[in-house]
């Protein structure tokens, strides 16, 4: 047997884990430990945010809104990144779990984006004197929310999930153009937002006393997304099974009725 034939027979670890049946097997026992770790990291992050971090010399106490705003803003783009990869999985590799991952991520991403806009508005009022400004960062993030909502609506518009998956995948890839606009809007246009201060060529421009709670909360929210995404993917797979079984039941009834 050739090496190529052996590779064809033995899928890699990712393909094995991402097979829908295998996914259902390994994901279930992972949920409770993941939920526990997420809760602990959230508790540590909130303790840092309220009791073990200083007020900012410019923004004062309102800097604490950063610990919930930045994680949600990060997730609004990260979740979309997951959807882009899943869309490629649907269009290029036709992976059976790719459209399940993309569909399950969309409502989560929409919620994180809405929460980023909400917390940003409440941070903007005391810091800039306004809840909203039509600047590049805020407007492109609002557009991202509309893209998420459009994708969710598109999923619901089709009965044929395979057809919906391909159309939504194309729309998701086109919508990905908004992500670099959000990222670089602070450099391209005049904006109330400060330039990048965490990921910069010279490293973070924040003191560790502010970075520690921020990173802890970012990890907590990211773990929460992973947990909710796993549960949503399982629900989507089981929902499709239920739909198939429902059709079988209807066909069975039709056969009995005809006889």
């Amino acid at each position, binding site marked *: 047997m050739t090496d190529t034939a052996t590779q064809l027979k033995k899928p890699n670890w990712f393909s094995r884990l991402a097979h829908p049946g295998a996914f259902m097997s390994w994901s279930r026992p992972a949920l409770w430990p993941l939920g526990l770790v997420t809760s602990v990291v959230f508790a540590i992050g909130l303790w840092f945010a309220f009791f073990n971090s200083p007020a900012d010399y410019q923004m004062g106490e309102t800097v604490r809104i950063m610990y919930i705003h930045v994680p949600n803003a990060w997730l609004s783009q990260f979740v979309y990144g997951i959807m882009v990869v899943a869309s490629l999985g649907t269009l290029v590799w036709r992976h059976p779990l790719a459209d399940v991952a993309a569909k399950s991520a969309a409502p989560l991403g929409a919620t994180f984006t809405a929460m980023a806009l909400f917390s940003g508005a409440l*941070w903007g009022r005391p810091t800039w004197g306004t809840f909203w400004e039509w600047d590049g960062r805020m407007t492109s993030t609002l557009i991202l929310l509309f893209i998420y909502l459009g994708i969710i609506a598109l999923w619901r518009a089709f009965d044929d999930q395979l057809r919906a998956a391909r159309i939504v995948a194309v729309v998701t890839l086109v919508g990905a153009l908004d992500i670099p606009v959000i990222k670089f809007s602070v450099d391209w246009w005049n904006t109330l937002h400060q330039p990048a201060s965490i990921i910069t060529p010279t490293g973070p421009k924040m003191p560790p006393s502010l970075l520690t709670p921020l990173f802890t909360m970012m990890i907590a929210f990211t773990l929460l997304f992973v947990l909710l995404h796993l549960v949503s993917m399982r*629900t989507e797979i089981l929902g499709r099974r239920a739909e198939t079984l429902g059709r079988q039941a209807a066909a069975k009834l039709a056969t009995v009725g005809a006889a």
Partner: protein
Amino acid sequence: MITGSAENIFIVWAYAGIGIGTFGLIGWVWLSARRVNARLKTLEAQGIRRRSAAPASGPSA
């Protein structure tokens, strides 16, 4: 440690809103999973099973 200031109302509203949003999202995901599980159980109680499923097994989220 957080200290008293006139701007604390914005911090309270921001954390309250994010708390409601986060728990709302968790609740929605949990209820969706429960609803699908209940539907599958109902179908299986009617004797409708996947061809590949073992006779006594029942999937759950």
